[in-house]
């Protein structure tokens, strides 16, 4: 029987903070911009320039740490991580070594219905690097330092995860918690949230850790899942063959659907960490920590629980609390139309589709929640003909107008007038005499075909219940 291997996984997540300014200078910390336009002597690493701590970055990191249950250091410092690369203009990165701002936290994840605690080793603050652009056909590389010096939070877990699914569950839960703090865009594609899993495998039943590899540059949950799965498989297969796993950094090869060793960077680096002499040690007061704690939002997990208690299906709640703004929006809708289940169906259905199609963020919805609630009520209570719902929703997004006026403007209000419907029913009976006589003959189920025809004739506007009642009256006596 072949040896079974157990994977051991830890995650390092880098979160780019979305502050108005960079971490150690006053340059704007925004995405995009022409290369090397959001720079100054400090983030260019010009001779003589000095870093100055942006306290907002420290506070944001403390909030991240607190939301992960960490202890916050009252005395901390920055250190220099020394290495040469063209994207770090000073020849070192300002980071934190032995006194991180936050340590010893945890995060509870749910995988296949089971709860599991993942230990958080540390959360520290550092500065981002610049970006390199390689022009292969000209054999050139260019450096853009717009990103250099932007505040970057690093969150490191214990090696507590044992499957790719657990790693992804952790990452999703972490992303939800962090996005609630409003300190980052948490966008994996744009790189404001970056994940580097480290993976080793060991024979089942043993406790010594195997040699680990690290995977870099993973930009979606899907890729994290695939690459970790692949890496577990690759390492297990290597050990089964009696080979050794090399300690190295690997990349995900999307085309080949496999991890590949990164070129270069094989030698173990000595970063020669030492305390950053340009930045005095930081003292964090108890008051600052408590103020930060008081500013923490209700975490997604608790909001999800509260929604489920209101009678919303798990699945709906999960999607709604994914973003704090969306959960808030949902609550706001309820104060106009207190039908949690119905509103939640709209918000995970047609409404979400509109947002996605229009590229609108769930945090930044342009429609007043009263309008959305009214729309939901009209749809549910028959104020909008069924066939016109999509049209009205689209109009709501296009114009932002109150749905009741939209319904009037578009002429899509439901027809409830007995006489008007009666006339349409007469016409349908006349045109479908064969079916009508079946109903008269006792085959009552055939009546639905006539309801359908009447609805069609009314272009969806007739109230189907009234249509059915009138048909019954006319055919069954």
């Amino acid at each position: 029987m072949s040896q079974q291997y157990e994977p051991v996984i830890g995650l390092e997540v880098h979160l780019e903070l979305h502050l108005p300014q960079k971490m150690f200078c006053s340059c704007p910390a925004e995405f995009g911009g022409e290369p090397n336009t959001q720079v100054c002597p400090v983030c260019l690493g010009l001779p003589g320039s000095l870093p100055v701590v942006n306290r907002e970055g420290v506070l944001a990191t403390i909030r991240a740490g607190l939301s992960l249950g960490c202890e916050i250091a009252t005395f901390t410092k920055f250190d220099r991580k020394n290495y040469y690369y063209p994207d770090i203009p000073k020849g070192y990165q300002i980071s934190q070594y032995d006194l991180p701002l936050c340590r010893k936290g945890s995060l509870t994840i749910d995988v296949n219905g089971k709860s599991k605690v993942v230990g958080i080793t540390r959360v520290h603050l550092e500065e981002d690097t610049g970006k390199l652009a390689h022009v292969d056909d000209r054999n050139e590389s260019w450096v853009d330092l717009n990103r250099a010096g932007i505040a970057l939070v690093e969150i490191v877990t214990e090696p507590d995860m044992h499957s790719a699914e657990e790693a992804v569950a952790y990452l999703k839960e972490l992303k939800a918690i962090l996005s609630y703090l409003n300190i980052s865009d948490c966008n994996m594609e744009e790189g404001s949230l970056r994940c580097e899993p480290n993976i080793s495998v060991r024979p089942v039943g043993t406790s010594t850790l195997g040699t680990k590899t690290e995977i870099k540059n993973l930009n979606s949950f899907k890729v994290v899942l695939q690459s970790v799965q692949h890496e577990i498989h690759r390492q297990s297969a290597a050990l089964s063959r009696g080979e050794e796993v090399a300690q190295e950094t690997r990349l995900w090869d999307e085309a080949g659907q496999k991890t590949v060793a990164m070129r270069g960077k094989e030698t173990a680096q000595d970063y020669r960490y030492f305390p950053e002499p340009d930045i005095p040690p930081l003292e964090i007061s108890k008051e600052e920590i408590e103020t930060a704690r008081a500013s923490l939002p209700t975490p997604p997990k608790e909001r999800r629980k509260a929604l489920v208690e209101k009678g919303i299906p798990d699945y709906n709640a999960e999607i709604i609390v994914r973003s704090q703004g969306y959960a808030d929006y949902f609550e706001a809708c309820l104060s106009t139309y207190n039908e949690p289940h119905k509103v939640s169906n709209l918000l995970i259905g047609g409404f979400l589709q509109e947002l996605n199609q229009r590229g609108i963020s769930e945090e930044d919805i342009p429609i007043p929640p009263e309008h959305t609630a009214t729309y939901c009520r009209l749809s549910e209570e028959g104020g909008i003909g069924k066939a016109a719902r999509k049209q009205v929703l689209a109009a709501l997004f296009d114009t932002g107008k109150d749905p009741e006026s939209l319904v009037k403007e578009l002429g899509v209000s439901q027809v409830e007038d007995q006489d008007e419907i009666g006339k349409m029913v007469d016409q349908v009976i006349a045109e479908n005499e064969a079916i009508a006589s079946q109903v008269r003959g006792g085959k009552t189920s055939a009546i639905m075909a006539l309801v359908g025809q009447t609805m069609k004739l009314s272009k969806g506007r007739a109230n189907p219940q009234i249509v059915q009642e009138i048909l019954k009256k006319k055919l069954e006596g």
Partner: protein
Amino acid sequence: MSELWKLTSGDLHERFTSGAASAVEIVESHLDRADQVEAKIDAILTLDRDHVLAQAKALDAKREKGEPLGMLAGIPIGIKDNICTEGIKTTAGSRILESFVPPYNAHVIDKILAADGIIFAKTNLDEFAMGSSCENSAFKVTKNPWDLTRVPGGSSGGSAAAVAAGIVPLALGTDTGGSIRQPASFCGLVGMKPTYGRVSRYGALAFASSLDQIGPISKDVAGSARLLSVIAGKDPNDGTSIDQEVPDYREALEEEMFGLTLGLPKEYMSDSLPSSIREAVDDVVLTLEALGTSVRAIDLPHTEYAVATYYVVANSEASSNLARYDGMHYGHRTKAPIKNLAESFSRTRSEGFGDEVKRRIMTGTHALSSGYYDAYYLKALKVRRKIREDFETAFEDVDAVIAPTSPVTAFKIGEKIDDPLSMYLTDILTVAVNLAGLPALSLPVGFSGEGLPIGLQIIGQPFEEELLLTLAQGYQVETDHHKKWPQIP
């Protein structure tokens, strides 16, 4: 008018503001003086006559219009070439920055300009301020105006030589382990290293961040007081600068020293001290006692470890501070064909740095390396604390400490350059002050038998620059060493 260059900074300012001399007349006198002596002294790396004259004309126009004039109005100032000047080359005496023109001013330069000072010249230095003789400059060896065969001291040797030769009345230096005080003492000048954090380091090319301070060099005590009043203060761009009120330091010159107690550390008065220096110190003690102070012997027991501690701390920080000079973003980049990134870095740096800088980067890198960090860097930090505590203990009994600035007078050019260790040992009396972050002022207290200036330093508690100025001024009023000029052949 022809001898305007001989006036002190205070007298020049007075002449200018009173209308007795125009700024153009003042700078022309100093430019003429530079023409006479610079070829022999080699104190200057960059001097742009047009730029100097343009500043002077603008000042004259300002005075003409009756606008208020700053504390440095009419005073030409030399700037050590490791302090960034916008639009003016700033080389740090290194090939690697041979053509580097900063796009910004150091904080102190902005302050000087705001006080109507005239940026006159960029002065020579040991490469990246690493040295005690100015021989480590990649561009020229500055000579001591008192004896052209001798060094002016370092690393602010160009600034000191320029003031001593009358090219400028005031200059800025930087002091990491004595780099203002030692050249001031070798050149018969006043030089002050302020308390760590008193003056912003923003724009001064870092050698050792936890030790570097910018400070003034001048003929007389008043000149240093004037320049310090302008450059001191909290700078939001330097997190290590300290928010403490800045007095008008010139007022300290009027204070009495009567009743003060001064300490003379036994460890700084070793038997190997030349008799000329020992005698000069004895004379100072007599003068100061006559002025109403009492002088007593004190102990600074960890003094013998100061030089080793200093070189570990300074070189460790330097190894990291100088990492940015990799040719990627500015400065020299190798033109040799290279195969990869690592080769580009190493060739650029091999070509761009001189021997002493390389030596310090290598020892500093070693001290921070894994496996050696605890034994060197961490140990040095512990001893540094002991050295600071020595001073704290001493200051429980005395108001200030006095000691020779250097165990030697200016040595011959070439005498120590091939023996780094003996060169390092000349820093023995200055480095502890930087490790402890204290203010210290060196002032001229006499001449050796060979006619070479001797300096004495006064060391104070943090932010007690005023006390140092009071003592130095009290001494200077009684003596005339500072009024002498070297005869430049």
